[in-house]
């Protein structure tokens, strides 16, 4: 690869703006700031106006923002070099979790390294698609079936290690992020449809292998009213919050479902319900428009990317963002099972936000470093 810095005179030909200096994409930044602003308002409201919660939230945003800036400075070719090593480390940590992990909520997800306690699966959300992209970096699109097969094997390995934690939801979502890379690399349609059909056909087997609590979640999802005081309660209350918002909503701080504690996890997994209740259908459409804006910009960046590695990373990251948003909203509105997943960029909470902001950093890096990769 002819990766050189000799085209730098192009960059310095005119005065660089601050954004350019910091390797930031202005449009993407605008979308992110809009979403994070909405997030701050909603966390404030959903927590019942607790300044302390909002302060912590803003500190996390600041930290994640710093990481985004940091990753925006790292040229993609460096990420490329580190990708296989990161993947190897990630797999080792997943094995470590299984052997030594902390047990929380009936599943081993956390690994303690000295004072740091983190989920290796969170790291894999980024690293798995990067690894598959790395695998395809120097292939023509579409790559050979052999390479697709290797990519699928890596995905299966990662998802397999997570599903035995057990964390079916995360495992599926991480697998999705890898599968999107296969898709964007040009996986033939017949294989895509064939796979979907075989997944559907294997559902009864999966059902048989599920843990009881997972089966219960599915059953509750299919008929939440069957257990209105137990596991169906969350969904019922969430639908009440959403539906009672109507078209215009009850107004900022007007969520009775959250403030009177009928809505569970109102600042985290169910924050969309608070948005729907307070800002109604109008607010929902605005939020989805912001997501579409960010995703569209991300896909545009992917389309302008100069090599396969960055193309695949950028596009799969955006699709992953979409899937997270879709699954969360589908879950709280009763379309999808309750999987315990935050709403990206909106929910209160640390690790998911950090992962997301790092991926935006990478996206910005892809877009702002490409002139250095001139052929």
């Amino acid at each position: 690869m002819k990766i050189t810095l000799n085209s730098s005179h192009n960059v310095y030909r005119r005065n660089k703006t601050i954004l350019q200096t910091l390797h930031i994409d202005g449009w993407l930044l605008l979308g992110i700031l809009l979403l994070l602003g909405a997030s701050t308002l909603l966390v404030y409201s959903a927590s019942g106006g607790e300044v302390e919660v909002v302060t912590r939230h803003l500190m996390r945003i600041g930290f994640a923002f710093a990481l985004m800036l940091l990753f925006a400075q790292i040229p993609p070719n460096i990420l490329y070099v580190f990708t296989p090593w990161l993947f190897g480390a990630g797999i080792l940590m997943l094995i470590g979790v299984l052997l030594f992990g902390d047990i929380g909520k009936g599943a081993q997800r956390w690994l303690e390294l000295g004072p740091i306690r983190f989920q290796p699966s969170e790291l894999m959300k980024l690293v798995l698609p990067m690894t598959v992209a790395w695998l395809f970096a120097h292939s023509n699109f579409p790559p050979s079936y052999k390479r697709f097969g290797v990519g699928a094997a890596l995905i299966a390995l990662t998802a397999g290690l997570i599903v035995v934690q057990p964390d079916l939801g995360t495992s599926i979502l991480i697998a999705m992020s890898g599968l999107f890379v296969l898709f964007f690399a040009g996986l033939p349609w017949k294989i895509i449809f064939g796979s979907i059909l075989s997944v559907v056909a294997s559902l009864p087997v999966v059902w048989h292998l599920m843990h009881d609590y997972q089966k219960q979640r599915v059953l509750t999802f299919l008929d939440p009213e069957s257990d209105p005081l137990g596991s169906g309660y969350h969904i019922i209350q969430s639908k009440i919050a959403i539906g009672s918002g109507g078209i215009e909503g009850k107004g900022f701080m007007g969520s009775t479902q959250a403030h009177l504690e009928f809505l569970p996890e109102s600042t985290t997994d169910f924050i969309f319900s608070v948005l729907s209740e307070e800002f109604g259908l109008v607010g929902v459409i605005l939020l989805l428009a912001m997501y579409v804006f960010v995703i569209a910009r991300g896909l545009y960046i992917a389309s302008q990317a100069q090599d396969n590695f960055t193309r695949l990373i950028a596009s799969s990251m955006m699709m992953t963002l979409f899937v997270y948003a879709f699954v969360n909203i589908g879950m709280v509105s009763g379309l999808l099972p309750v999987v315990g997943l935050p709403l990206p960029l909106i929910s209160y909470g640390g690790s998911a936000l950090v992962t997301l902001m790092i991926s935006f950093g990478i996206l910005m890096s892809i877009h702002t470093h490409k002139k250095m990769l001139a052929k």
Partner: protein
Amino acid sequence: MSERLDFNSDAEAFAEKKLFRNRLLFGFIFVVSLFGVLIGRMVYLQWFNFEHYHLLAEDNRISIETLPPTRGKIYDRNHVLLADNQPVFTLKFTREKIDDIAQTEAFIGELLPNLSEAQRQKFFEKLRRTGRSRSILLPYSLSEEEAAQFAVQSYQHPGLSLTARLKRVYPFGATAVHALGYVGRINSKELSQLDERDYRGTEIIGKLGIEKYYESRLHGEPGIQQVETNAKGRVLRKLENIPAIPGDDIQLTLDIQLQQYAESLFSEHKRGAIIAIDPKTGEVLAYVSMPVFDPNLFVDGIDQATYSALLNNPHRPMINRGINGQYPPGSTIKPFVALGAIENDYISPLKKIFDPGYFEYKNHRYRDWKRTGHGLVDMNDAIVQSCDTYFYELSLDMGIDAIHDALAPFGFGNVTAIDIPGESKGILPSQEWKKTTKGEPWYRGETIISSIGQGYNLTTPVQLAKATAILANGGKIIQPHLLKDAKLPAPQQIEIKDIQNWNRVVAAMHDVMHSPRGTARRHGQGLGFEMAGKTGTAQVFSLNEADYDADSIDKRLHDHSLFVGFGPIENPQIAVAVIVENGGSGSGTAAPMAVDVIKKYLELNTP
């Protein structure tokens, strides 16, 4: 790897880029269409089903607390309070906040040693069945000391809170209990009959007497307090408030002083009734049924042992003798029979008959109470001396139906419609009555004993008092009532053929008290006013020919002692009927009690 990049032709690169851009486009369409699905879902929830979810959210948020109305108070005719509501401390149990019911029960056992074990168990049984979001009140009034003790330890029991409520209190205790009745906890039968909306939040209902009869006036209407509650049921703020409409205070015609005095006339273990009526209006001045019991026992729910003791008491205190005690009227019926006879020309008031001490009919001797006989008696003598033979003979001339028709207008054998629920009718026999109830023809021998108020005749004390009042007021058919402003139909008048006949009967009753031969002459002396009266001694069962020996038979089988009377004779202000069960002779027991009641009333009402 780098070779492969170099081999990429421009055409290949173009095709590759086209493939990728197609996939990007497809991805973007995928994103937008799935977001479209979400928006569709939101439109479904927020637009089409807004009303439904809006209601559910309001239902979550708003809970309705009922504000029970304050029960109306009850006063006597002089505005003395007879039934009051007093604030008492009790404990409110919020089921949701009680983790360990057994532990709480142990705590209550320690805190409230006066709460009987049976009551405690019953309450905790109820608590276990109570829904999580509900709270119930302990049916027990804490003393101030107990309340203070609880307050110290309350922090350990978040599910328990001290709360004040109004408790029905009868300050005169057992006095007039059969007139007032009492309130008690609503039972399931009552619950099924009443409108639940009116009784939300109310735990008591009138069970007997005035409390039951005027329940709808005393109860009032509950109010509504809308409150916003959180998911744990805690009230955060009050929304709408429709205050309760308290029940009406009601005033009774009873004079509690006269009532207490009349009750005091019954010596211990005496059973019976005294009904005193204002003959002009029908207002009941005293309503005594003895023995009595304390209505306060019932307000918070009576415990089984006390209740059983009351039920099994041989003197039957729970029986309301005033309306449900059905007694043979005995000789107290004579003035009414006599009036009927002379009004309808069955006999001349001046006609004398000879009484040898018995009356013979179909080889059967009907004895007079005086075995030696009264000799020649006219109507006046017959009433004054209570000559049975006179009436035996008269009755055969009249026949049972004429007697029935003469007595029926006075209300014998029918309810008086007094405002106490559950009144008995008594029996005023006639040929038709016997045919319909017993399916047998009437025998003339039965007429004979009916004429002196024996045989099938049964009257309630309130009936007897009503009849006496009608006699006193000159035939105005009053309706006995306890509510001062009772809405009554306009009183009817008994047809009077010759007012002199009425005067003669009243004069004879006057002589019962004041003539040297009157059966109650001992009690008519030195009263300071003149009155009318008639004694009665009713046989509880037929002694046949055997001598009446009061001491040799069980006291329960002694004669009932009766008396009816009114005074002052020129302007009757009070009419009284007295019955003392197994009290012996009317003149000996009932007469002095009646005289004392009349005297007391006139004293109380002399300015």
